[in-house]
């Protein structure tokens, strides 16, 4: 090894090429082009698309899910997954609704939502990091467990009567058409972007995802990082539960049903490798916008929901397959 090579900054597996080429060939650019195309197609297809209020309403299609997706992205990059996020929403929402019956006010409800989210995250985290169980198995179990508790508490009943100040967290506007949820979306995108891409913690997440053994030998406390990631995912699910409960104004045990798959879809569409080790928050942000625009745009054309699911599925497979196809063709 020559001296020049030794002093060069170390390359990580997600940074093997130069900056310009990296951007040109990046997933994010491809996704961004798709987003722009969908936006243009939407404006052409429906006269109602380009209306600030309509677009503002449409952001609810993705804001809550994407908040969880940011934390989920980190978790998946580290090589783990949490499929219990929708179950956590149900349990956190049920806990808040239950507390509401005893006259707990908005600050108390928010605290309960966050606490339940953290506790659920901690439960998953302990099972995965302390007992060494595979996260996919653990969280498939807790997915049913958390929602099951909601079903036991509520049955076919509902909690409602949330105060207006609580409803504001899910429906309120900060400024003009900018909703509180959209503001949270932007704030969390920035926070998670900085954490993943600009801090040591973020580098540790990538390292663990690429090679947990090497990460351990380089002195990274793998279990601790994973525990923090599970706590974060739980916390974000708690925040999503607060927003969603406020928006719906009621809690039923079927709340946020099957959202875990939509969150994972968002993360994977955002270019995060499902095998861990690669991905970016920018990708997840664009993926959230793409999914939101597709859902809203097709909704405006009254395309049945099942066609939307097919469209998103095709998009996912297409976007994943395209770069691989290109590389394969190039190698020939």
């Amino acid at each position: 090894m020559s001296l020049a090579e030794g002093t060069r900054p170390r390359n990580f597996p997600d940074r093997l090429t130069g900056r310009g080429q990296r951007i040109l060939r990046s997933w994010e650019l491809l996704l961004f082009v798709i987003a722009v195309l969908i936006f243009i197609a939407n404006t052409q297809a429906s006269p109602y698309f380009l209306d600030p209020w309509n677009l503002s309403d449409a952001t609810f299609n993705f804001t809550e899910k994407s908040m969880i997706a940011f934390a989920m992205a980190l978790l998946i990059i580290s090589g783990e997954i949490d499929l219990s996020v929708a179950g956590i929403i149900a349990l956190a929402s049920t806990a808040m609704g239950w507390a509401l019956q005893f006259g707990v006010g908005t600050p108390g409800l928010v605290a309960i939502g966050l606490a339940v989210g953290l506790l659920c995250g901690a439960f998953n985290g302990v099972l995965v990091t302390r007992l060494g169980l595979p996260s996919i198995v653990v969280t498939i179990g807790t997915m049913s467990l958390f929602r099951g508790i909601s079903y036991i508490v509520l049955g076919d009943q509902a909690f409602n009567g949330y105060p207006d100040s609580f409803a504001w967290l899910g429906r309120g506007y900060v400024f003009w058409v900018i909703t509180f949820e959209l503001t949270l979306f932007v704030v969390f995108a920035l926070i998670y972007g900085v954490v993943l891409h600009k801090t040591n913690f973020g580098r540790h997440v990538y390292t663990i995802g690429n090679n947990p053994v090497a990460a351990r030998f380089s002195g990274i406390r793998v279990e601790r990082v994973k525990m923090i990631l599970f706590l974060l995912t739980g916390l974000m699910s708690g925040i999503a539960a607060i927003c969603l409960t406020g928006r719906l104004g009621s809690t039923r045990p079927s709340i946020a049903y099957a959202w875990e798959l939509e969150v994972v879809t968002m993360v994977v569409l955002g270019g995060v490798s499902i095998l861990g080790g690669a991905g970016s928050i920018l990708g997840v942000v664009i993926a959230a916008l793409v999914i939101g625009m597709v859902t809203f745009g097709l909704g405006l054309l009254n395309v049945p929901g099942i066609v939307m699911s097919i469209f998103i599925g095709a998009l996912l497979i297409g976007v994943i397959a395209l770069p691989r196809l290109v590389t394969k063709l190039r190698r020939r």
Partner: protein
Amino acid sequence: MTLTRRFAIGLGLAASLMGTTAMAQDSVRIALVAKSLGNGFFEAAARGAEEAAEELGNTEIIYTGPTSTTAEGQIEVINSLIAQRVDAIAISANDPDAVVPALQKAMQRGITVISWDSGVAPEGREMHLAPSSDELIGRTIIKLAADHLPEGGEVAVLSATSTSTNQNTWIAEMEKVMDQYPDIEVVATVYGDDLADKSYREAQGLMQTYPDLDAIIAPTSVGIVAAAQAVQDASKVGQVNVTGLGLPSEMAGAIESGASKSFAIWNPVDLGYTTAMIAHALATDEATAEPGAEIDTGRMGSVTLDEDNQAAMSEPFTYDESNIDEFKSIF
């Protein structure tokens, strides 16, 4: 963007792509929101709504709904309908409370909102159209049995659980009109708990205890199927007629074997038709949703709103061998 340009874009591009979105803006656009798509009941209701639209003229039905029966999915649908500025939203709600904020927003933006089939809390809609009322159901179930007993006879009731509010109310309503049928005697009321095996055993027990039994009335879709099976297995087809409330798809076999001569349930086609008629009347200000208001519903007559702005469409529709084949594939 000027109106003409919007029109040009709408007609030139959207129409070529999707056809319906930017159709003549002055037609009345009624959105029929189902609990979920791909359900025969709602598909049939949509057909009824289309029939009403044809009759009314210049009316467009937008039949839509989420893929799965969730409130979140319906809210996304409602938001896109608000964005399209439809004239009316008629929804069968997955959750009576969770869709309220979204529907209130729709009403604030001048959209007529009604619920049908599965209702929405009063603050989230202008009126609710129930397929039938307790009173009409109670009258129908005894009439179904009496129609095939011109000489009178013994009938028994096979209900769901003893605490089922719906069934208890219907049976109470039935008892109120029993004086119109002096020759018919209700000999027993038993409870199958809406479990197929328990209902089956209760029906067997009825036939053993009352050998002269002429009819079993089961105002529950589980009980009626089990009772028909019990009658068939006891070779009492022709002696004991099973009737009540059931689903055509599940009852087709019993009608074919003769264990059940007729039964009733709401007709989804009529329900969709009536819903569209009411939505049109309210959206065009031909009628106002207020207690006591009477709204014309075309071939279905008219409905009258009660103090909660609820209305009942009609008595349940009777299904027998003449129409079962048509409906058994629907729901």
